[in-house]
């Protein structure tokens, strides 16, 4: 059904996942030190979905995401220091500090607008897909969103138009409310949907759908390869539900590094993981699972450790850069509401 990942690719995707993990661990520590403000959301635990799906995009494609966007941006190749500077509200952040964690963009990478409004990104992504189809450009738009988006009407309106007009849109629903006993109402963020299976909803709009274990990188890579190819061939939109078990650190209203920063050896020595996260790291942590894979494919522990050390350093440097980045000049708040000049 799909070509296998080369070992070089496998390691590259590991690099991306580890970068996301190290970046976000750092973020929590910085928040705890009061270095930045506001509510923020982490991608820890969902890394395999983002990196594998985004690996299927071409450089010219569009990518839309939500409040839980760090992983998608980093997987797409955004410089961590610029994302971090943005989250810290600095002038050299991706958005000049105007967005913080909530809606960072990287237009040169096809990330035109990020919406922190639940359901906001799906119609925008359908619009980018519409543009691609209208211009016959062969581009694809991929949009990530949480299971909560299926509670918002905006989703259905965009889904319907995407289906009617066969837009080159790949919908990736990251359902982080699995296992089912945790899908009850009233949790935050929670999934509160009547459907037995979220895919049945998209199926009723005639979309090809797939449910995939979001912690299984190869499975995600395979499914998204198909969906992106369909879209690029002009066969229209599709819907993937990637299922993740929620990282324990994401249960509190503000994230917390429960059990401490991830240690690589949890991959080869499961007992080493602290009790409060052991079940999750062992069975659901996409990084632990993928390290086992790359080792099984012949990589050495040393290789993986060296890679990680590099990434920790990269995050160190990014942190330094971002912490020293200038604040925006206060009065610039009044600037840039409207674009001047004629369009090209």
């Amino acid at each position: 059904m799909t070509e296998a990942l080369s070992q070089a690719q496998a390691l590259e995707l590991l690099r991306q996942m580890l970068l996301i993990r190290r970046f976000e661990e750092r973020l929590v520590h910085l928040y705890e030190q009061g270095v930045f403000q506001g509510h923020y959301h982490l991608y820890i635990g969902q890394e395999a979905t983002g990196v594998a799906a985004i690996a299927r995009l071409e450089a010219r494609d569009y990518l839309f995401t939500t409040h839980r966007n760090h992983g998608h941006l980093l997987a797409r190749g955004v410089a961590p220091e610029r994302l971090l500077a943005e989250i810290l509200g600095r002038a050299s952040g991706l958005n000049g500090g105007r967005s913080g964690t909530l809606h960072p963009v990287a237009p040169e990478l096809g990330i035109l607008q990020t919406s922190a409004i639940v359901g906001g990104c799906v119609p925008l992504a359908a619009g980018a897909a519409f543009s691609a189809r209208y211009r016959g450009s062969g581009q694809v738009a991929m949009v990530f969103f949480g299971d909560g988006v299926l509670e918002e009407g905006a989703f259905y309106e965009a889904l319907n138009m995407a289906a009617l007009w066969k837009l080159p849109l790949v919908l990736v629903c990251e359902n982080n409310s699995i296992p089912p006993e945790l899908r009850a109402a009233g949790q935050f963020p929670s999934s509160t949907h009547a459907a037995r299976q979220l895919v049945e909803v998209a199926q009723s709009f005639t979309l090809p759908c797939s449910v995939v274990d979001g912690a299984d990188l190869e499975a995600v890579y395979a499914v998204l390869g198909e969906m992106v190819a369909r879209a690029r061939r002009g066969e229209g939109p599709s819907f993937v539900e990637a299922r993740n078990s929620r990282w324990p650190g994401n249960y509190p209203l503000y994230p917390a590094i429960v059990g401490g920063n991830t240690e690589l050896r949890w991959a080869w020595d499961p007992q080493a993981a602290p009790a409060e996260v052991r079940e999750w790291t062992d069975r659901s942590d996409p990084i632990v699972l993928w390290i086992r894979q790359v080792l099984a494919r012949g990589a050495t522990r040393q290789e993986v450790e060296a890679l990680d050390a590099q990434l920790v350093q990269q995050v160190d440097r990014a942190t330094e850069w971002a912490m020293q980045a200038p604040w925006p000049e206060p009065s610039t708040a009044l600037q840039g509401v409207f674009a001047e000049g004629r369009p090209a």
Partner: protein
Amino acid sequence: MTRTLTYAQALAEALGEILREDERVVIFGGGFAGITPSRVHFGPLFKEFPGRFVAPPISELGLAGLGAGAAMAGLRPIVDLGTGSFVFEAFPAVANEAAIAYYTSNQQTTVPVVYHLLGGIRGAGAEQHSQAVQALFWQTPGLQIMLPGSPADVKGLVRTAALASKNPTLFVSHYRLMEVAGPVPEEPYEIPFGQAEVKRAGTDATIVACGIQVPRALEAAERLAADGVSVEVVDPRTLVPLDEAAILASVRKTGRAVVTDETPRSCGVAAELVARLVEQAWGALKTPPRRVTIPDVPIPFSEPLEAFVTPGVDRLVAAVREVLG
């Protein structure tokens, strides 16, 4: 060369020119004249530009977001949302996506989308279909707002919005403007945003009016002229950007102002204009400016009720007399 066209004809002509010139323009919906007889003027466009019109489902929120996304990704969509109140459905996409994207992206993402609405009291639209929405979106920064009040203005402004701007524009027209006729130049032209027009010169008092209030203000001025009162009618044409200088110049000259709009009174367009006059022309005002607006009530169906709440010519005439003291 100018000819006499109706507002709807001028709009249809402008759309035809725009579609012909820039293939990035795509129109979602396209019942610009709603259920008025003028809707016939748009049919020929559907035929001439078949691939350029998209018939959407009844999905204002999804559609407004899709239009914004398409604009971010290189198109210049015109999204016809129909009756003014239908933008309520689209509110999150218009006010919290299209309007903020350029600003929050630190001037990286442009959103050249036009949202068209038929705002205001259309005649028998009742409570749910009669709202004017320009003040709501003046309250949600990031949108240009145009309210053309004449055939010539609609032709020039819609071209500016669709071809010459990088920003999202709310284009509010009006059922009762569609059949209004006036001279319209034959060739294509742009009317820059933020440039008011003195629709009638006068010396005794100023009426600031845009959109549907323009013909009403002109009629009021005509009536008052018969009594020897010289009224200047200033039409800002766009609320965002607003040509404050032109409004202030007129009011400094006449010393008396009536501001009028078809939004409800509280926090409406007229409230904002009064506040600006007070802030910037305090010394020049001989009497307090008067507002002629909708009272703070929903718009009822029944004709006498609807007429009572409409800010029509009689009320404009009375307000001018009041400011004359």
